[in-house]
């Protein structure tokens, strides 16, 4: 990232290939629309390039890149409201969402994806950021502009909601463990 800031083209190519899959997955989890996610990914890399000087080398790269992605998504959502475009029917056009490893064994991927789409957006975002992309709660707080404790609570409640949507509660888990 530091050599990219200095203007090395090769560094950008490396950065692009390393970040693209994760940023695309994140955008998919926010938009539920593969083509829109692809468009926003291009916009994200454009913004990433424009604001490369806002990156502070002592901080990790991924929270910075995810925060830019989130900014691009939020601005696009505001623009979409202005255009009076309706959001896509989430369940009908559901793309393959990233699945947290903790729940992967509870049902098939499609079912988990549908259940995940029914979890409220703030909870789902915190849940995925922590359980799929491995961000710490402090990093999630700094990315979303919330307290560390709030990030933890959202991820926990997100996981609870996901389990409820899948029809798995704590007693089931205990029985399985026995």
């Amino acid at each position: 990232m530091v050599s990219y800031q200095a203007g090395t083209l090769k560094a950008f190519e490396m950065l692009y290939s390393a970040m693209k899959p994760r940023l695309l997955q994140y955008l998919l989890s926010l938009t539920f629309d593969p083509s829109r996610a692809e468009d926003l990914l291009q916009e994200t890399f454009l913004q990433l390039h424009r604001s490369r000087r806002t990156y502070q080398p002592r901080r990790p790269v991924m929270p910075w890149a995810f925060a830019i992605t989130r900014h691009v998504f939020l601005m696009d959502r505001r623009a979409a409201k202005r255009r009076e475009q309706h959001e896509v029917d989430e369940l009908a056009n559901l793309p393959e969402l990233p699945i947290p490893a903790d729940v992967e064994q509870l049902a098939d991927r499609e079912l988990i994806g549908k259940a995940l789409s029914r979890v409220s957006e703030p909870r789902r975002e915190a849940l995925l950021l922590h359980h799929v992309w491995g961000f710490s709660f402090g990093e999630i707080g700094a990315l979303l502009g919330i307290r560390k404790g709030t990030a933890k609570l959202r991820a926990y409640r997100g996981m609870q909601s996901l389990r409820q949507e899948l029809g798995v509660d704590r007693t089931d888990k205990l029985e399985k463990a026995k």
Partner: protein
Amino acid sequence: MALALVGFGIRVDYEILGPRTAWALALTQLAVGYLLAIAGLRMVIPGALLAAGSVRLAAILAILSHVGIAAFTFQRSPVPVAEDRVWELWAICFLITFLMSLLPLAVAVAFASKGLPCNPIFVGTLCGLGAGLAGEAAWRMHCHYTSWEHILAAHTGAVLAAALVGALAGFLWQRRQIALRI
């Protein structure tokens, strides 16, 4: 602050208030204003956001500290405004405090526009509030009228007006970003 002192001179109740107290109150408010503006600028760095709830609380505490400083000053040196000069002094203090806030606000907005704020209106309001408090801190070194009606209507009013201008700058920045996408 230097501009206020050189251009208009130090407040006439400087000795009654006590030089140390007068400077301490003004510098405290200046620091609070700058800290608030810095918190606003931090909200434009991707992945380094402060919790919005904490920042809102800090903004409320900053306004309360301004009111507290005004109350303390009034208690030490109560100077009412003459009835026939109420509107004249309101206009002077409101305008000058507001104008003094514009320079730090312009600097803050210039820095903020280089970042990526997720909530530009909130960032603009914070920067405006911070700049307003800094501007008022400078003007209070000259203005010796301490009555509540004058302070709240002219000085606090100008601080809130600066916050409004900051919010407007944020709104315009956001509208421009949205327009580029339509």
